[in-house]
């Protein structure tokens, strides 16, 4: 039974894998690699948590076509990302660029690590300073 479901899943999902962005866009493997990298870094704004590589929404299809066109025209990756950010804003890139508006996204994790680390450090230091003979109390407290 389980195997049957698995087979069904494979068949169904294989179909959809071909439906999206069928075929190879470029004969040149290097171009194809660039194309695949760019499309996997660009957010499909209608289906926000998918890349345009994984989506068949109109917008994703159109953007893939534009990216293919720009690659054929010899545009650099940076120029292609610029084209998209100018039109759709920073949110279109899964890895937003460092800029005034996105700075907080980039520094927040490090800031949180530092603040969390300081808090943890203070708590541990405080615990270390406590006398050992109130073991029973702290056991109760932590349940």
């Amino acid at each position, binding site marked *: 039974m389980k195997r049957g479901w698995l087979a069904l899943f494979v068949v169904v999902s294989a179909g959809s894998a071909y439906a999206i962005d069928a075929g190879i866009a470029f004969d040149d493997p290097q171009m194809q690699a660039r194309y695949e990298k760019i499309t996997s870094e660009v957010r499909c704004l*209608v289906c*926000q948590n998918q890349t345009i590589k994984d989506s068949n929404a*109109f*917008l994703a299809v*159109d*953007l893939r076509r534009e990216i293919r066109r720009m690659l054929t025209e010899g545009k650099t990756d940076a120029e292609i990302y610029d084209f998209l950010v100018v*039109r759709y804003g920073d949110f279109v890139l899964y890895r937003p660029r460092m800029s005034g508006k996105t700075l907080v996204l980039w520094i927040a994790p490090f800031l949180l690590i530092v603040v969390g680390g300081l808090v943890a450090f203070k708590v541990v230091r405080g615990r270390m300073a406590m006398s050992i003979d109130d073991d029973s109390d702290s056991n109760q407290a932590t349940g």
Partner: protein
Amino acid sequence: MSRYLIPLLLVAIMIPVFIIGLNRDPSELPSPFLNKPAPEFELPRLKDPSRTVGSADYAGQMVLVNVWATWCVGCRQEHAYLLKLASETDIPIYGLNWRDQRSKALAWLSELGDPYIASGFDADGRVGIDWGVYGAPETFLISADGIVLYKHLSPLSEMVWQRNFEPRILAAKGSIE
């Protein structure tokens, strides 16, 4: 007491942050064109493909550019209000018929009425990309000097118009006179 003060303070800060954050619709993104020159376009007209319609047609006027398609449910919802705006205000409405089929779009306009001065027929979504369109209906308010004053991302209605469009239109008109 003071050992509870800091967590309490933190919670007091987080509550408004979450209230604002959770009430925002993450699918509504600010247009990068806001307060910047609107992109230009030129497309064959929906009703008469031998002629074009484009940004040159409304240069020097304050206009609405409305992105619509027959497959878009929200567009049907706002259509009656667009007709009302077309008859009751002096702001011309231009349409961008996005990713649609001409026959369906023409049938839609003859069945429901046509609020547009003209609609450009953007079959392959090329102009849509230039305008950063990602979901219809979208409505751009463009000033007489070609600046995007506002972009609205859901169906238009009386309430939306009064709250989001009228103040901006009045402000823009006021600054000219």
